[in-house]
């Protein structure tokens, strides 16, 4: 079965139980749930010192999250990994209730309901990502790759990580236009409103491609599956259309029957690395408890995949240049519409 | 071959009851054989066994001398047995032809061959004088025509042995006359007929022999020509039955129910009641006679508030009720024994006691301030059950659905009569009931009259109208074509008027 990993090598040492609670959606969402889980599983496979399990709570309310965490803790799970900002208030409570357990909160920080002041717990590490930087690079790559100079963005629900991806994407296109003289334009910038309406994803993508858009950046979960689907069908017929994936390297998702892929590149967020690293930190006694950690381009926490078969060499060079500008702090990628407005000047 | 059908020592049990208790029935080829018995005596069950709908627990069946096992209707069909069921088995939104060919359709050019089937149906209907429109939908045709469809269904399957389960219960006198004629025709052509009916007159008119069943047992088989109606009734019920309603001359008082220039449309928006004027006085029974479909149903529904009127006025004791809701009319003193007891008269999934308070549940003593008083309801229901001799398995708590039609009807009558409304509209009060039950119900209606109530009786049975009414109004094509005194008229005259002729006709 998919969720337990029975290690064949019997170790004398008792294994540490590491549990995960999924956010909305399932463990195989090709996004933060899956990323987190893969990090945990990789750790188990690499080191063999942990025993892992995930739970999908019965709902998305704080109560559901707290109960799922309780179930893990009560079953002896010492480390609990929770991906998603939705866990913020739940972790704030659980961390107090279970002082002996350790929590890795990805994409969020503990705080009280209705207040945004960070509440420090020594048994919690909060990990953030600079999604806008990943979006930025994706924007640069897209602007450089488009043949029609028309780009599209499909977001799921308007939640912080999705917004940051989108703003970064806009900024990247602007940057490319200014720096490399491209003439790309984001003609459609749309939040579909859900993460699950696959049919709407296809409809939107079809509409955009029909308008002449040739690259769509999606940060939309299941809606993105519809976008991919439309792109793949067009590519099968020989049309040159692309999708920019999100969260993980979606090259495989974009594969069509001749072996090529419609995935231009992906705006990645190395959640798996985060999960892996902080489990490791805990087990080795250097857990950064009580800290907020932001993983950015500098730490390789976000970025484009190593291999981008669909980007031209020239594009790759230019993207590297853009990346360097960010790393050298020559530019600061905006995270909100306001900052974007300033960035444009 | 002396007998074409022999059912020997048939036993059929239902949970808690033996419906057929070693019944033996022997039918000669070419005869019309009647089956007579009280409601619930087991007639339909016996015929269902013959038709393969039920499997008997014991007994043998021989058809044309050969022992057979009839495990489903297909086998019955193959043996040339056809049945017209008590409750028609027709698909309401299919055409006549579709209903007839169902189960033995022919295909031409890959499609259902409706045309040649319709042709064959037309031939059959000509030969046996069963007028139908092969392309009409069942829901649009009269009950009489529906029955002709049922008969054609059997003939279409070349049935040699035809079973009719209470075929006349829902027919008009004219239609009954026709049916009797058709049966004789068919017998003359060599077909064998078994007919179940509660009407002794009909048995007298067509049957050669008659088997009487009582409480699941066969009592006797008699030669109809040599047996009087009284004798047959006595065999069936086990006591003497009087056919003539015992009633003194009416003593009418003031005018209570008055209808003025009433016009009503039917479901299809066609005027079904035209300028009807009627006045009924206290202490009298006004019967309304007429062939089914001449506006009686619409008139009843207009009076009782189940249908909106087009124009005109209805009064009870000078209170205009024409546009009042049903509840208000009932409170103004109107009672109603509906013609369809399953559709309107009862909530079949309610217990008997809950049905007894269907119109009075909101009143004291059955409830106060919106809260039901279960004790009062129970004792009231038990009282009525005793008074009106409503028979059922578990008394007041019996599920109404499980009761026999006769007892269901008695329950309705108990409810309506006990409310003692000033005006009682009675529609088809004895449809499908046995003579014993009919006798009883007639007695209660006359009792109400004698108490000074106003009674408007609708019946398709001329006998009933003639027997019960003091005056008789005849309805034809939505109009009242004449009103006569019951004592001064006869079946012939009424029949003529019902067909649009007669003494008071306008032209």
């Amino acid at each position, binding site marked *: 079965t998919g969720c337990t990993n029975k290690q064949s090598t019997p170790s004398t040492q008792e294994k540490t139980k590491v549990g995960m609670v999924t956010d*909305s959606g399932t463990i195989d969402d090709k996004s933060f749930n899956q990323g987190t889980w893969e990090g945990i599983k990789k750790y188990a496979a690499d080191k063999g010192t942990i025993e892992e399990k995930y739970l999908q709570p019965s709902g998305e309310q704080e109560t559901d999250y707290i109960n799922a965490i309780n179930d893990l803790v009560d079953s002896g799970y010492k480390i609990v990994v929770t991906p998603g*900002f939705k866990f913020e208030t739940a972790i704030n409570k659980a961390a107090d209730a279970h002082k002996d357990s350790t929590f890795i909160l990805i994409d969020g920080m503990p705080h009280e309901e209705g207040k945004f002041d960070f509440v420090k717990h020594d048994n919690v590490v909060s990990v953030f990502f600079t999604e806008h930087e990943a979006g930025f690079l994706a924007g640069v790559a897209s602007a450089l790759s488009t043949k029609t100079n028309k780009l599209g963005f499909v977001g799921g629900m308007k939640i912080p990580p999705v917004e940051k991806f989108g703003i970064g994407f806009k900024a990247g296109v602007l940057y490319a236009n200014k720096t490399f003289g491209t003439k790309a334009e984001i003609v459609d910038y749309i939040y579909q409103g859900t993460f699950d309406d696959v049919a709407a994803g296809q409809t939107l993508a079809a509409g955009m491609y029909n308008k002449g858009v040739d690259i769509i950046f999606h940060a939309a979960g299941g809606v993105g599956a519809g976008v991919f689907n439309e792109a793949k069908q067009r590519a099968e017929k020989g049309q040159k259309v692309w999708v920019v994936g999100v969260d993980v390297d979606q090259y495989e998702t974009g594969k069509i029957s001749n072996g090529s892929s419609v995935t231009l590149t992906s705006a990645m967020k190395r959640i798996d690395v985060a999960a892996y690293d902080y489990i490791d930190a805990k087990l080795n006694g250097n857990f950064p408890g009580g800290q907020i950690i932001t993983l950015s381009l500098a730490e390789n926490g976000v970025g484009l995949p190593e291999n981008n078969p669909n980007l031209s060499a020239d594009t790759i060079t230019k993207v590297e240049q853009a990346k360097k500008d960010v790393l050298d702090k020559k530019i600061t990628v905006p995270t909100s519409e306001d900052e974007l407005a300033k960035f444009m000047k | 071959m002396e007998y074409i059908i022999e059912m020997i020592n048939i036993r059929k049990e239902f949970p808690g009851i033996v419906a057929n208790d070693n019944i033996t029935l022997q039918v000669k080829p070419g005869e019309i054989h009647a089956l007579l018995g009280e409601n619930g005596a087991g007639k339909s069950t016996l015929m269902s066994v013959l038709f393969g709908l039920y499997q008997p627990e014991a007994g043998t069946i021989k058809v044309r001398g050969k022992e057979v096992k009839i495990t489903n209707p297909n086998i019955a069909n193959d043996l040339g047995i056809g049945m017209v069921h008590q409750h028609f088995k027709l698909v309401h939104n299919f055409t006549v032809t579709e209903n007839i060919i169902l189960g033995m359709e022919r295909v031409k050019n890959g499609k259902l061959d409706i045309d040649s089937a319709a042709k064959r149906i037309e031939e059959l209907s000509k030969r046996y004088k069963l007028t139908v429109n092969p392309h009409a939908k069942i829901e649009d045709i009269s009950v009489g025509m529906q029955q002709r469809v049922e008969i054609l269904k059997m003939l279409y399957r070349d049935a040699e042995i035809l079973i009719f389960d209470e075929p006349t219960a829902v027919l008009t006198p004219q239609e009954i006359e026709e049916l009797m004629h058709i049966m004789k025709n068919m017998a003359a052509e060599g077909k064998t007929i078994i007919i179940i009916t509660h009407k002794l007159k009909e048995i007298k008119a067509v049957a050669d022999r008659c088997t009487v069943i009582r409480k699941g047992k066969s009592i006797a088989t008699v030669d109809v020509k040599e047996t009087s109606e009284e004798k047959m009734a006595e065999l069936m019920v086990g006591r003497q039955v009087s056919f003539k309603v015992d009633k003194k001359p009416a003593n009418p008082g003031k005018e209570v129910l008055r209808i003025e220039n009433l016009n009503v449309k039917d479901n299809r928006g066609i005027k079904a009641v035209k300028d009807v004027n009627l006045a009924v006085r206290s202490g009298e029974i006004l019967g309304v006679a007429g062939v089914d479909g001449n506006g009686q149903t619409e008139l009843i529904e207009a009076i009782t508030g189940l249908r909106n009127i087009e124009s005109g006025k209805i009064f009870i004791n000078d209170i205009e009720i024409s546009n009042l809701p049903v509840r208000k009319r009932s409170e103004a003193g109107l009672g109603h024994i509906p013609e369809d007891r399953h559709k309107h008269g009862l909530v079949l999934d309610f217990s008997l006691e809950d049905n007894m308070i269907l119109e009075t549940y909101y009143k004291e003593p059955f409830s106060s301030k919106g809260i039901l008083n279960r004790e009062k309801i129970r004792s009231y229901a038990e009282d009525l059950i005793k008074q009106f001799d409503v028979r059922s398995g578990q008394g007041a708590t019996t599920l109404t659905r499980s009761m026999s039609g006769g007892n269901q009807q008695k329950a309705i009558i108990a409810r309506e009569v006990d409310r003692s409304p000033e005006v009682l509209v009675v529609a088809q009060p004895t449809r499908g009931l046995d003579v014993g039950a009919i006798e009883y119900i007639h007695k209660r209606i006359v009792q109400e009259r004698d108490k000074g109530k106003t009674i408007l009786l609708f019946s398709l049975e001329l006998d009933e109208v003639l027997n019960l009414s003091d005056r008789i109004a005849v309805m034809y094509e939505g109009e009242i074509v004449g009103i006569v005194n019951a004592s001064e008229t006869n079946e012939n005259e009424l029949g003529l008027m019902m067909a649009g002729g007669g003494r008071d006709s306008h032209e």
Partner: protein
Amino acid sequence: MNKKKIIIPLLAVLLGFITGAIVMILTGHNPIEAYSALLKGAGLFGDVKRFGDTLLNMTTLILTGLSVAFAFRTGLFNIGAAGQMLMGGFVAVLIGVKFNLPPFIHVTIATITAVLAGAAWGYIPGLLKAKFRIHEVVSTIMMNYIAMWSVYYLVPKYIPGSFSTESKAINTSASLRTEWLTNLFKGSYVNLGLFLALIAVLLIWWILEKTTFGYELKAVGFNLHASQYAGMKVNRNMILSMMISGALAGLAGATYYIGYANNIKIGVLPSQGYDGIAVALLGLNSPFGVALTALLFGFMNAGRLFMQSSTSVPNELVPIIIAIIIFFAATSLMLETWLKKSEKFFKKSEGGK
């Protein structure tokens, strides 16, 4: 007769668990371990907090189950409990966020408005059915989606929370949670909604069995024509019935969004709305049956994650077992025949002596 009515669902539940055990054995898991974990997770071995969570889960299901059952009893199939619940919850949260009132008054107003909102959401399909004879199955399905998208739009617009996918948290004065209950149940959020749900069970039973209003509703449900004949206002009853059904779902929304939770999320229809159908049907559409079934579902919901975390059995098995239970309940005729046969058998063998 009545005894049989209770025995059959119980047998169905038992058979469901047995089948579940067989499935577990076939897939290589230990059913005894799993079931004891399930029971333990639901607090049936004495963990007060966990038992509180069972009651908490039960609360909402009682109300959605009642909502569906009540409609069924009056001849209507309300698939719209989810939408009605959502609208009720939205209004309760709206009041809870927007106003600052003394505790008792605040929560009372929030709850009452939730009930009214649910009733209003039920009113529309009721009206459409009464006036235009539009099948309530279609209209309630449509109303569910309309509710989902309305909340989707209204929450960020009027009561945005930390993120645009959820509302602000309600003021504690509007919460159905109370300190003494939370303390009594060692931190479980079991709340006043539980009592409201139990009161609703009694009330609905009382309405259906003891009042003229219930009598009318049942009559209309069984036989529309006879009800008309008896002078009942059929259309009015249909609308009222849908409204009460909606009101119950609205109350479920209150217990869920200002009791179980303390804010409302957008983009989801509460699954309890659909679960209500199963609860109602397994509870034979009777108020007490609904309460018992809700308890069963509540404890399965409360215990399932614990079962998964402490054993090797995957969590998806729980809905499989629930489905099997429902399926056995559905085929209860088979059980009935078996019962009859065994009865006969025993009687015969007794008679033989």
